[in-house]
């Protein structure tokens, strides 16, 4: 990387050091400093790295995003109502800082902790240290290192053994201005037999270019279940980088559904460690983009122990000059017998200038396994279009209808009613008016 970017982030660290949370915690300080040193060494990923060969982040490297201070924003409760989903508990983050006054957590039952990470660092630093105290020898990328160095806040969600909430929890992340950097860290811990349903929701209050860099760590205990929805509606100029890592214990279940609709340059890494017998995960995703949007999903599922199951379905609809990247890695480790993995990536290209790069990937080191994957790229089936046209539906509507049906396969899996309704509204928004009468 250019020395200037490393210098910039070093200066930036010196500037914001005074108000970063957990200043007095030596372990956190060490973690931040070693992450910053790591970043100074490696810098941002480049196209020469296999994991980044289709996604160029030079624009992020060239830009100078300033870490947003906790005070200045001016987001109002009315605005929150416009973005948020009804009927949920809510943690609101503005420019990477938890805003209790805008959040609605209510009275929580015993064993449930819902708060900001900075607050939890004050309240129970040992617990946070136990969860994230170790400094990794290497980071997945320069982005992960930057996040570790600059992390300001994020959601802290912990459910004790057997804890269950009736309502899902919405984590609403709002970005207000251009040229800001947000490095958020979410921690989710599901005790044995507990059940957590989360919606990570990113919205923009303006149209500017900003840099959102979120890392989410999820621990799924024995026979616990975590459902993680991610709805990304960033500004069309925004850089959105996100990494989710879920580690499952025996019998644990993890579901991730990633809906990428906004953002200019988007990269999402989702990793799942099936670390004990009978753990299971489902990863679904939908990217629906146009203009010059670039959306990259990298998923990695590690079948580390026997008898685990994974299911994955990622679908993409590409219009304009957009570009989508999908890389789905499934690794069945030695002795992980009776692993069952299925993965599919389906892409619909709607325009001459759109591009898709798909790379499903299987690495298998055990023999008694059932693994398969499939990937397709194509356009709408002319016979289906013809079928609709022969019944009096005009060409544009027929295509819109089929496109809607293609995307709906992922949307209909969402079991949180208000979220599904919002997604359908958003999908419809991209269709011609007359199609809505047909549906």
């Amino acid at each position: 990387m250019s020395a200037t970017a490393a210098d910039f982030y070093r200066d930036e660290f010196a500037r914001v050091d005074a108000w970063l949370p957990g200043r007095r915690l030596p372990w956190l300080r060490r973690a931040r400093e070693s992450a910053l040193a790591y970043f100074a060494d490696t810098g941002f990923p480049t196209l020469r790295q296999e994991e980044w060969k289709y996604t160029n982040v030079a624009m992020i490297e060239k830009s100078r995003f300033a870490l947003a201070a906790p005070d200045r924003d001016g987001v109002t409760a009315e605005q929150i109502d416009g973005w948020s989903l009804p009927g949920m508990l809510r943690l609101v983050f503005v420019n990477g800082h938890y805003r209790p006054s805008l959040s609605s957590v209510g009275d929580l039952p015993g064993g449930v902790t819902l708060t900001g990470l900075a607050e939890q660092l004050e309240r129970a630093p040992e617990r946070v240290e136990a969860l994230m105290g170790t400094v990794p020898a290497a980071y997945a990328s320069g982005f992960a290192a930057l996040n570790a160095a600059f992390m300001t806040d994020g959601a802290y969600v912990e459910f004790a053994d057997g804890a269950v909430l009736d309502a899902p929890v919405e984590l609403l992340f709002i970005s207000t201005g251009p040229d800001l950097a947000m490095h958020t860290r979410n921690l989710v811990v599901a005790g044995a037999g507990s059940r957590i349903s989360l919606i990570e929701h990113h919205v923009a209050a303006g149209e500017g270019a900003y840099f959102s860099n979120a890392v989410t760590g999820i621990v799924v205990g024995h026979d616990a279940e975590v459902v993680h929805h991610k709805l990304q509606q960033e500004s069309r100029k925004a850089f959105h980088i996100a990494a989710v890592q879920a580690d499952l214990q025996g019998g644990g279940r993890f579901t991730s559904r990633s809906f990428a609709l906004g953002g200019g340059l988007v990269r999402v890494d989702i990793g799942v460690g099936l670390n004990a017998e009978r753990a299971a995960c489902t990863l679904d995703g939908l990217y629906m983009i146009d203009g010059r949007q670039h959306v990259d999903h990298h998923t990695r599922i590690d079948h580390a122990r026997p008898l685990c199951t994974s299911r994955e379905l990622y679908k993409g609809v590409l219009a304009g000059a957009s570009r989508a990247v999908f890389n789905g890695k499934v690794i069945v480790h030695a002795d992980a017998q009776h692993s069952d993995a299925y993965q599919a990536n389906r892409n619909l290209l709607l325009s001459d200038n759109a591009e898709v790069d798909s790379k499903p990937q299987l690495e298998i080191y055990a023999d008694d396994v059932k693994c398969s994957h499939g990937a397709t790229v194509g356009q709408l089936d002319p016979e289906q279009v013809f079928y609709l046209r022969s019944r009096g539906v005009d060409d544009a509507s027929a295509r819109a209808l089929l496109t809607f049906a293609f995307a709906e396969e992922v949307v209909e899996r969402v079991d949180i009613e208000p979220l599904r309704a919002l997604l359908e509204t958003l999908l419809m928004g991209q269709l011609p008016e007359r199609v809505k009468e047909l549906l």
Partner: protein
Amino acid sequence: MSSTLKLDELISQDYKHGFYTEVETDSVPRGLSEDVIRQISAKKGEPDFMLEWRLAAYRHWLTMSEPHWATVHHPPIDYQDISYYAAPKSRKDGPQSLDDVDPELRRTYEKLGVPLEERALLAGVAVDAVFDSVSVATTFKEKLAGLGIVFCSFSEAVREYPELVRQYLGSVVPYTDNFFASLNSAVFSDGSFCYIPPGVRCPMELSTYFRINARNTGQFERTLIIADKGAYVSYLEGCTAPMRDENQLHAAVVELIALEDAQIKYATVQNWYPGDKEGRGGIYNFVTKRGDCRGDNSKISWTQVETGSAITWKYPSVILQGDNAVGEFYSVALTNHYQQADTGTKMVHLGKNTRSTILSKGISAGHGQNAYRGLVKVAKSAVGARNYSQCDSLLLGDRCGAHTFPYIEVKNPTARVEHEASTSRIGEDQLFYCQSRGIAPEDAVSMIVNGFCKEVFKELPMEFAVEAQKLLGVSLEGSIG
């Protein structure tokens, strides 16, 4: 493996082509430098343009570093510890006919079952046998020459048809292409050259046996096949190598060019020495194979059966330039003991309505690691391109691995690209089904493995299909328990 062959027999079988022929060889000293390249070129009496090309390749190679992205592992290769040229001594006098060929060589071919002399006639195969880098015998030459077909050793082509060589050499795999292709371009010893004139259908299957013989001699073969407008040729390449302990580097380059309406079928059975049961020794087979469908309606088809080599690293590819061009890739790759294979294909769609089919079958046994790595690229210009890929893996034993790395890059909305991959092992229920019908478990396994590969074998010419089945059986020895 024929189903009557008993498994015990298989397990006890040794590598049956493991022998060593005592032939005096004329080698250049180990090591690589511009002097060595000048020496090779001089020994072969090459024209200047050839030497210049070699030197350019060498100078480029010096700027490159060995690639490490493949999922294969091996100790570092010392390129200065390889002898880059070995020619059988008998070559000096230039054998005028088969009778002039060293009887030791002839016996070698007999052991290998190369159909020379009358047997060649019966089998209908013309053999340009490459023995330690220099072609020593060419048959059916007159018959082919009558049709205007040029089929000769590469050295001969450089001398006799320099214009053809100059026009096409490096036009598919340039000397800057990759580390091993550059190395090959600098030091290639010999290989086969084939030119089919417009409208000619080659009346027989052309075949070459490559063989590594002299100790410590890396083989750097170069093959160039050109099918002019409307021509057709089917080419067979078979490899066997004698048993030895040291790892040997084999970095071949194959270039195929199909002009308008032309068709090339290229089939390989690769059975280089795979190393012993502990993974010692064996050939490193780092090959660049690429076909260029340069004209409209042209077709190139690769079929390979890879059972040998300690490491196989090759991606026979097709560049579909012409409209309506067709590319095909059929592969069976088997890894046993500590063998590693990283193989697959690249289909680059440039022309309109180009079509490609990929069918890859990987079989892993013992500690074998088998990876399919493929690229399907549809450029913006490739309106109506169509690809279908299927990659299946069969695992025998719990210490082996099967991996799939398909890259799909699509820039045209009218393209249809489909990729499917599956992994399985031989199911208890399948074995039970066979046993309940009186089929011994060993025979059942062999039936299932052969059934698994059937779609690929049917693409091979008859004689090759039989040989391929046998090879599969031999290579699986000791792995089914």
